[in-house]
């Protein structure tokens, strides 16, 4: 089977998730302690990745930063799914009706807003911070999931087993829950990992321009923007958080691809 992308993807994702989880109970150093005297240390046995401009342990910062990224992305994708999927299912169950039209046109409108612009508007209105970043990214996830689940649900609605369920007297809500939803979960999972990686990128972008998580909570995006001016003298401070983002997003995308192959019934039948 095509485990070529599933295994490395799952490995990378697991790595960062466990780093984030472990950071709740243990980090090599306290990331809130600022020790200017020991700043810009090179990697060694005590500070595995060296220290940053405030003398904080970079490795610990990365661990806690993973937590921030993952938390923001999980909740944002969650919002997108919890709101978007029911909307998509409702639209599919009522194709051609006013409800469908209203849902899909609202979707189009949200889509028409460049995502970052939503984020900027929200954070500009309500102030920067992780919660607002979550809402901003979440809102832009809603139409993604609504569209996807509507399209997927429509194709399931065309299948004969839905007709059979209708012949068994089941109403649209029940059919949506019993028959449609289980048959689009694969797609939702795959899209979920992709949106998750986009969420991490978006959080990094927002933090980079100062609209994401606020200090003293470490965030990869802010670590990057903090180190921007130091790229000539202390390039590792800009390279390491950047690499963390790349590897996490890469891992999630690989995982998504792998899952797609793995969950695809056409491929599964052959297995």
């Amino acid at each position, binding site marked *: 089977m095509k485990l070529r992308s599933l295994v490395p993807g799952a490995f990378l994702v697991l790595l960062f998730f466990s780093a984030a989880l472990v950071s709740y109970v243990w980090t090599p150093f306290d990331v809130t302690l600022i020790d200017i005297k020991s700043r810009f240390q090179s990697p060694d046995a005590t500070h595995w990745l060296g220290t940053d401009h405030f003398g904080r342990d970079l490795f610990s910062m990365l661990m806690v930063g993973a937590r921030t990224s993952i938390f923001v992305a999980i909740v944002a994708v969650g919002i997108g799914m919890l709101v978007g999927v029911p909307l998509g299912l409702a639209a599919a169950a009522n194709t051609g009706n006013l409800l469908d039209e209203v849902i899909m046109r609202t979707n*189009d409108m949200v*889509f028409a807003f460049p995502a970052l612009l939503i984020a900027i508007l929200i954070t*500009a209105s309500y102030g920067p911070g992780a919660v607002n970043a979550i809402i901003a990214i979440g809102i832009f996830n809603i139409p993604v999931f609504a569209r996807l689940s509507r399209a997927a649900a429509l194709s399931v609605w065309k299948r004969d087993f839905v007709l059979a369920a209708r012949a068994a007297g089941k109403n649209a809500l029940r059919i949506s829950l019993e028959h449609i939803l289980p048959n689009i979960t694969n797609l939702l999972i795959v899209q979920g990992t992709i949106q998750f990686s986009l969420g991490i990128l978006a959080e*990094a972008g927002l933090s980079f321009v100062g609209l994401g998580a606020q200090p003293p909570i470490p965030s990869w995006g802010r670590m990057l923007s903090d180190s921007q001016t130091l790229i000539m003298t202390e390039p590792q401070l*800009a390279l390491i958080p950047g690499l963390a983002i790349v590897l996490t997003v890469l891992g999630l995308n690989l995982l998504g691809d792998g899952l797609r192959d793995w969950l695809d019934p056409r491929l599964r039948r052959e297995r």
Partner: protein
Amino acid sequence: MLHYIFKRTLILLATLIVASLVVFVSLEIVPGDPASYMLGLNAQEDTVAALRAELGLDKPKIARYFSWVSGLVTGDFGTSYTYRTPVADMVQDRMWVSLPLAIYALALSTLIAFPAGVYAASRRGGAGDTTVMGLTQLGVAIPNFWFAMLLVLLFAIKLRWFSAGGFPGWDAGFFQAMKSLTLPAIALALPQASILTRVMRSSLLDVLNEDFMRTARAKGLTRRQALWKHALRNAMIPVLTIMGLQFSFLLAGAIIIENVFYLPGLGRLIFQSIASRDLIVVESVVMLLVLAVVLVTFLVDLAYAWVDPRLRGTR
């Protein structure tokens, strides 16, 4: 077809109206008063009030909304609070940076993505395919602002091939202007190209599995001929969709990239205007970007009809 266009136009208008409401309402509740920002720490209350009156900020919100919208429709975007110049002029100047940047990036990503996608699809499963796909995975994963930092470090500071940012203006000559847009365009194009390559490849692979490709081969076309003559145009349909969707991401990316390269474009204008609470500029620029996205979506819809005769004419 006419009906289709009519329906799309109605949706377009509705989108714009709702967008204008959302933009206006969400910015009106933004804390921060442009007048007191402009006058600074030592300003006296009556001075601020005088300035508010001068800027028309003391009028009721509904009246301001309608005067703003009717202004937009007639092309009068109002006057910037802080710059004291017509917003339309500012936007027009900035657009001559942002638009070429977007087009440059789009062109770059298309030029990279099409051959790369075709190459990967035609060597499905081979080493070439794996390499291209690996690179696109990386391209999607790299945040473009970080990539921009790396580009500046390498090409502007270490190698000094390009300037680190700024924009000399088109009057400095086409070549000079394009040169200063090159690094930002590359930074913007990288994730776009990666996504497009992937879409191009998978769309082509889908088409290659279609029955009519077998018909084409049965005619005696070689694999390559069949690919170019029959597969590409069919594969364009999903690619167009993605290109249309990507446009809004491109704009969003441009907002950050323009800040990294200090390009005087619309993205930087938005940030500056938000910082200075120059609401009318923010409102108008956001509306303009929304309009751009909506129009591009509209054009993509029309382009479908060009590519796909099934959407054309009567049925």
